[in-house]
């Protein structure tokens, strides 16, 4: 009990302190003339804001500072200016390979994820008997732990006894090809990860699309039927524009997820000849090699890449995203 008393005490005191701060903030805001509702609102969200500042904003800003330092976790950060970035862009032999691998992975898996999720959602949107059971089954991937799934993938891709090579055997024999060593041969690493990304089609992405599909007004389809529109025309001219904001969301979220792939890569451990994903590189630089400054620099480069790509996608939205409020205006 004595050993855990400190931890228990901190656990108990934390909400008490947050409540005190919220109360204090309310009285302070009222004193400076804020209305009751406004003061109450801000004081009630203050615990979340404090948590955000401590666990998100501060580490974000501190990591930017660390990216300009030589920091090994044990000594004080030593300011080195742009050295880390210069090293990464000009001399680091792993960095550009890692960027290439990560971007390639995102470019391949994003379309698979978005299109695949939409197609599955459209199937689950049909009014058939037992659709509820199908929806439950297709959501299961979302509740399975990522690590357990990664271990299953290792079995699946086992070159001697794995299910994938077993299924491919007739084709391999036909073309007189050997069984691919999915994680040992650099040529097959990206295809293996692309296959694994199919798992991401199911789960939350499908549910989000399903909700979007169910929000499309039935009247639009009825009118299209009256005009004799084909199924494809209805899909392309009604469904896609109506759910385009959700497609945009899925693209952005999918891109962020793909560029930050980590767990599967760490557990599957493909040959390093294929390169490392950027998050893998960040982890190894920070915790194995104790170059936290370099790791922070890589993290900020990844952030810039994600930001740039997201802005690029947003730039294209006037051409294909339809917001119902614009139509009403």
């Amino acid at each position, binding site marked *: *009990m004595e050993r855990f008393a400190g931890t228990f005490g901190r656990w108990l005191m934390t909400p008490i302190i947050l409540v005190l701060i919220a109360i204090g903030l309310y009285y302070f805001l009222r004193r400076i003339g804020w209305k009751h509702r406004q003061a109450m609102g801000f004081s009630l969200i203050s615990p979340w804001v404090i948590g955000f500042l401590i666990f998100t904003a501060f580490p974000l800003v501190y990591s930017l500072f660390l990216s300009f330092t030589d920091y090994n976790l*044990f000594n004080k950060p030593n300011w080195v200016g742009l050295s880390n970035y210069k090293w990464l862009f000009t001399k680091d032999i792993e960095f550009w390979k890692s960027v290439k691998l990560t971007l390639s992975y995102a470019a391949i898996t994003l379309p698979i994820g978005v299109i695949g999720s939409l197609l599955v959602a459209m199937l689950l949107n049909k009014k058939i008997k037992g659709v509820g059971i199908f929806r439950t089954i297709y959501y299961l991937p979302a509740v399975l732990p990522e690590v357990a799934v990664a271990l299953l993938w290792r079995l699946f891709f086992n070159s*001697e006894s794995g299910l994938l090579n077993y299924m491919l055997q007739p084709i391999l024999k036909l073309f007189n090809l050997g069984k691919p060593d999915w994680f*040992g041969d650099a040529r097959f690493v990206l295809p293996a990860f692309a296959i694994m990304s199919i798992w991401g089609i199911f789960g939350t992405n499908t549910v989000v699309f399903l909700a979007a599909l169910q929000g499309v007004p039935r009247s639009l389809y009825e009118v299209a039927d009256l005009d004799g529109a084909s199924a494809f025309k209805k899909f392309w001219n009604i469904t896609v524009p109506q759910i385009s904001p959700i497609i945009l969301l899925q693209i952005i979220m999918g891109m962020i997820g793909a560029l930050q792939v980590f767990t599967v890569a760490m557990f599957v451990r493909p040959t390093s000849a294929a390169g490392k994903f950027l998050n893998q590189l960040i982890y190894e630089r920070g915790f194995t090699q*104790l170059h936290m400054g370099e790791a922070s620099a890589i993290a900020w480069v990844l952030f810039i890449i994600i930001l740039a790509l997201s802005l690029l996608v947003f730039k294209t939205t006037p051409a294909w995203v339809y917001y119902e409020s614009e139509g009403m205006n």
Partner: protein
Amino acid sequence: MKKMLTGVLSLILVASILLSGCSNGKTGADNKKSEKKEKATIRLATWAGADEAKELQKIIDKLNESSELYKIEQDSNPADYDTRITTQLSGNGGLDIFWVSAQRASQLAAKGAMLDITDKLSSSDHPAADVSDYFEASLQPFKKDDKLYGLPWLEQPIVLYINEDLFKKAGVPIPDDSWNWDKFMDAAKKLTIDGNGKNAAESGFNAESAKQWGFTVNGWPPAQMFVWQNGGDVIAPDFSTSPIDSPEAMEAFKFYADLINGPVVPKQQIIRDRGFDTMFKDQQVAMFMGGAADNLENQVKFKCKVCEVPAGPSGQKATFGDVLGMGINAKTKNPDAAFAALLDLTDAIHHWKVMPPRKSLATMDEMNKLHPERSESMQAIINSLEYAKLYRYYENYPDWDNIFWTQLMDPIVNNHGDPEKLIPVVKPQLDEKLVRK
């Protein structure tokens, strides 16, 4: 609002009363006073798995019973051990002593995460504090600028485990002191059998249908061992260069590549799928190079003998000696108790594991007393310790090792890389990592 404030204040009062009753709440001065009266709790972090942790706990219980200074609490978890202790050491994780690998020890010692115990050792008359009793090589990872930051509790040389039954069946003589690379390859070929019963030394041998292999390698044993056996090195003693392009080193890397790509070693795919050491235990591989502490001869169902690894072409003997040890957190609140615990526990582990890195204990008599079940293997293990070498660890060794593996060894092991083409490209990359130290 006033009622709410009153309620919250009351809650704080109650919580404070509860906490003052439960928590330690002692100041630094109080801690020093209480250290004298009650035992200091020393938190020990290890990577021991469930079985090893149980055995370790028995040792700890005995030490705790006999000590008046400390009470060791074990915190063992092999998952992500390095990241865990790095985070704990850089913060105030409350860790006092911890197991550490040779590579990490040299890193952490250089960065000031481990307590300097040089003076404490010199003023202690504990048997485990006698620095002259340790094999010099085993202390290297814990040294920085002639100061010591920890103690090794194990130095295990790589030895050659052989399946005697398969050797007899193939008519291959058991390895002896004259074994070198050539004799090793000859034996490996005769022990590699295809589906038609032909061995790799016979014409008509079909490597594609091999069902038994003479040897196995997947990056382990390390190529550095073969470089040393051939008189070369991968890091110069003064850390000025990585001489992997010397004729001796080049020849060793080519020998290693030929081993991997030749018929006597299974394809890497097969090794990954069936399990590296599992194939030896399942009698699919006749020879296996493993650590002396692996104790494979007592784990398998066939007759298994421990031999010394073969010498190089000119008869030079060398093997890799892996060192594991223990250090004290530089931020520990109980340095004296932690030091006492470190010495006692190190000494206890010297009497538990194979091999203790101490000359007084690494003798036939002592080892036969401590490990009678391994008496037949002890001579080979003790002989191996005489010429065991460590990697030349330094502060940024992980950077160097990352390049060595990803740019040189991984291509050789997994992608049929040609050392003659790779080495000229990789050498300057390795040299750069030495310069950055």
